[in-house]
């Protein structure tokens, strides 16, 4: 007998898939939100394709964020890189505090419409949680363990790969998970600059004054964020168990 939480997750997944594959079945639910006989279900494109494109953008942006943020976190915790810590922190903080919409507004004149400005905005927005968690993870390695690694004769590289990164891994993964989930929601704004994604549904609803569309776009995005959060949790636990940290 699966636990209630597992059942709930499976139900959420089933609901999402059903809505993406046969959205018309849900039409009666959305009719009350339409006026003047407008279509109750989004009909200007394929929902599954939009969802996939949306996820693709989020994953690509978070992957680049993770590479840059983890790399920076490693750099500033090395003896030679400590002086870059304040600068790195400032840059990453700007990435988080600068509104993604403003990033889009700046990026579009530079790189044009489409996926790229969205990727840039999400990349900048996703840096902070991963960077800060990498930093905490590496800094919270017990000093005795780090000293033992040095004392055993590990090179700095061996110490990083064999001791520090494995010990920091739970926090790093948690940071990636956070960025990923936040970016699922944030990515909807990409549709304002013609990136493919679920934001299209919401914008279509706004333009035609169709609340049903807005609800559908929000619902699918929200469900994906929740499911991704749970999925990442499972992946994390698998990785930690494989490396004996849990």
């Amino acid at each position: 007998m699966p636990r209630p939480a597992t059942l709930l997750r499976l139900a959420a997944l089933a609901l999402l898939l059903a809505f993406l594959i046969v959205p018309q079945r849900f039409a009666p639910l959305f009719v009350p939100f339409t006026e003047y006989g407008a279509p109750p279900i989004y009909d200007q494109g394929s929902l599954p394709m939009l969802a996939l494109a949306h996820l693709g953008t989020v994953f690509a942006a978070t992957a680049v964020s993770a590479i840059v943020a983890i790399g920076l976190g490693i750099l500033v915790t090395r003896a030679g890189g400590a002086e870059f810590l304040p600068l790195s922190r400032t840059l990453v903080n700007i990435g988080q505090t600068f509104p993604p919409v403003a990033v889009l507004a700046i990026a579009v004149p530079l790189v044009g419409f489409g996926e790229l400005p969205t990727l840039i905005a999400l990349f900048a927005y996703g840096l902070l949680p991963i960077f800060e968690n990498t930093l905490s993870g590496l800094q919270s390695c017990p000093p005795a363990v780090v000293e033992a690694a040095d004392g055993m004769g590990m090179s700095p590289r061996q110490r990083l790969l064999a001791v520090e990164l494995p010990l920091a891994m739970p926090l790093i993964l948690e940071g990636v998970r956070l960025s990923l989930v936040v970016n699922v929601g944030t990515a909807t704004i990409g549709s304002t600059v013609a990136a493919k994604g679920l934001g299209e549904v919401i914008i279509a609803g706004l333009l035609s004054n169709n609340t049903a569309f807005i609800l559908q776009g929000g619902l699918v995005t929200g469900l994906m964020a929740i499911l991704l959060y749970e999925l990442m949790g499972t992946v994390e636990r698998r990785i930690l168990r494989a490396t004996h940290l849990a």
Partner: protein
Amino acid sequence: MIEISSLSKVYAEATVVDEVSMVVAGGSITAIVGTSGSGKSTLLRMINRLVEPTRGRVVINGRDAATVPGHLLRREIGYAIQGHGLFPHRTVAENIATVPRLLGWQAARTRARVEELLRIFQLEPAEYGAKFPHQLSGGQQQRVGVARALAAEPRVLLMDEPFGALDPIIRGQAQDDLRDIQRRFGTTVVLVTHDIDEAFRLGDHVGVMSRGRLLQYDRPAMLLTHPADPFVSRLTGTADRALKLLSLTTAAQAMEPGAAAGDGPAVAATDSLRDVLAQLLWSGAAAATVRRPDGSAAGQVTLAGILARGRSD
């Protein structure tokens, strides 16, 4: 053998280790004792170059330590620290195998060595090898820490307060184990401690450090009878130094011919005179019989003989 000459460490304004010279004999235990901030740990870490010396030289078994890359040097030198520093994400066996793996030993040789060490430290390989550090008791973790330091058969073992985190009973056992293992492998051990009793118990030679300087470096009895500095006599304690001196002498060294009268207690040749004296006081006898392991009498230790050895001259 470790030859340390004019070794200094200077940080900005502070001189942490000041012109220390000493020779650690091969196959012996040297204990360096001092208060915190005396520079003893820094001195120890300059031997394996976890701390780079500002000035001076360390020659280990004929080779200048500065001529080898630091991390390669450290693979040849055992290192055990307070709080063991075991890798929490690795099993006991993997922890012990750390240095053999770094040195590229063949898997079979590493495995055999890990099992040998686990047995020496009274940890059954089948039961403990696959456990993780957090599943062990404090004493077991400490033993694994020392086993890991000894894994690649180093000729030199450095220990920084290795027993500091243990409770007194386990600490005594760990000290005895270290003595046994040091004799068994003939390892040259340099041990840093703030505990003068530990230094006396383990050290063939004891060095006393204060404010970066090595005040005295000699056999333990000499520190008691001929302290070179007021700090040394304060550290070793003046009130009970007669008893400390007795604890450094064994029954065998004070043995006289003959056997004690019937009511005298029996002692072993390896017992310290301090223990023999305690037994004599307790039993009210004037002499104790020294018995061989097979039970036969080897000689006797008399109260008068003990008292003579505790005197200041």
